[in-house]
């Protein structure tokens, strides 16, 4: 118990004194996971919409692949992204290995299937005649998509929360493709892992409290957007 209180005290201390190293790690975590979730939304939501609203050969296979991604172990993603980004790999010429960009790629690979699968479910729950109605009112393809997104907003916000939760909490992929380099690729989860391995439980708890706090702020904002009062 003493260890937990010590960790919380240290977390407050780090937050109040704005510890430079922890601030840098926190900012990098936000940047990397923020960019990854943005990419995942841009790719996953239209992909989910296409899978939900269009019929084409191979659709069922793509849905099963997307759902497989829900259980994709981050360390497996880290391994495959490493293979691709490694100097001798197919994308080695990009020179991205052990950079924040590599972590963004790995986290996007983790989050895209999550956002896609949840978006697919959100769009499929809509009344199938809604599209017909929008078309009959004269809506073009983009206008129809816009209104479908609005109607599916509760499920889509859940998709974003699930995607963000998956990447802000993962450690395996960030460790493998980022390398946990101090001042360059160290993010909150890899920092916690490292502090634990060094036996610095107080520091590890402190960073974990910051991580939890950040995650809560994001999820609370999304929950507010999702649950805010609608007209009765």
């Amino acid at each position, binding site marked *: 118990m003493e260890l937990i209180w010590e960790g919380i005290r240290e977390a407050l201390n780090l937050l109040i004194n704005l510890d430079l190293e922890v601030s840098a790690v926190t900012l990098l975590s936000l940047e990397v996971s923020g960019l990854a979730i943005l990419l995942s939304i841009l790719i996953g939501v239209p992909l989910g919409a296409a899978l939900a609203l269009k019929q084409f050969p191979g659709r069922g296979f793509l849905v099963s692949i997307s759902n497989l991604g829900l259980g994709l172990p981050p360390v497996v993603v880290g391994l495959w992204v490493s293979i691709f980004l490694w100097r001798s790999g197919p994308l080695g010429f990009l020179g991205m290995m052990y950079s924040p960009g590599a972590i963004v790629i790995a986290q996007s690979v983790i989050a895209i299937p999550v956002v896609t699968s949840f978006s697919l479910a959100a769009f499929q729950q809509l009344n199938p005649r809604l599209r017909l109605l929008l*078309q*009959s*009112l*004269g809506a073009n393809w983009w206008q129809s998509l816009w209104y479908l997104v609005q*109607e599916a907003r509760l499920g889509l916000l859940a998709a974003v929360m699930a995607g963000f939760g998956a990447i802000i909490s993962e450690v395996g992929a960030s460790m493998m493709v980022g390398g946990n380099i101090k001042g360059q690729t160290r993010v909150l989860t890899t920092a916690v892992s490292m502090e634990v391995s060094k036996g610095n439980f107080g520091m590890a708890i402190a960073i974990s409290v910051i991580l939890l706090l950040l995650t809560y702020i994001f999820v609370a904002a999304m929950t507010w957007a999702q649950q805010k009062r609608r*007209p*009765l």
Partner: protein
Amino acid sequence: MVPLLELEKITLVRSGRTVLDIEDFQLLERTRTAFMGPNGAGKSTLLLLLAGLLTPTTGAIRYRGQDLRSLNLDLWRQRTAMVLQEPVLLDRSVRRNIELGLIIRKRPAPERKRKVDEWLERLNITVLADRSARALSGGEARRVSLARALVLEPELLLLDEPFNSLDEDTTNNLINDLRRILPESGATTILVTHHREEAVALVETLCRMESGRIVSCRQLPA
């Protein structure tokens, strides 16, 4: 007199089955026509075709003598309004639902407000304006759905079983209102129904469909 719409040798084949086969049909402007017939006769499919939501396999649909294929489909849809069997409403306020088509058609806000207020009043649902569409009864939802179509002042109004699954009193109230509203609106109207009394109350011409064909049309006594 050039008819508003003319269907010539129309067929529609879906999954290898001919679901519509109409040799010749004309619809004059500002008339009201009902289609009756058994389930699967092609009544609702005909409405979807006229709304520009389905394309005929063969044949031509002419609007004021001009082939629909030479018109922009989005523009054609903006001349029509359809009320579906089920009142599909957005999870928004009643006002927002009614002005949806006007927003899609990029009408200015003052015009939207004026028209929505007018149709809220004409369909006796002004009191519901700010209520969520989720909280409506079946009859109220049907009125909102009708207002959403009528507010567009369409040239062609397509009503697909608009009283479906409503109780008798609600249906009678709605028919009484529509008996006044439809002639006032000036829209050429097609009603699909299973109930002769609904047709008799609202239209001038009653057509019967069977197996995708229009088998008869006759004028109803005034």
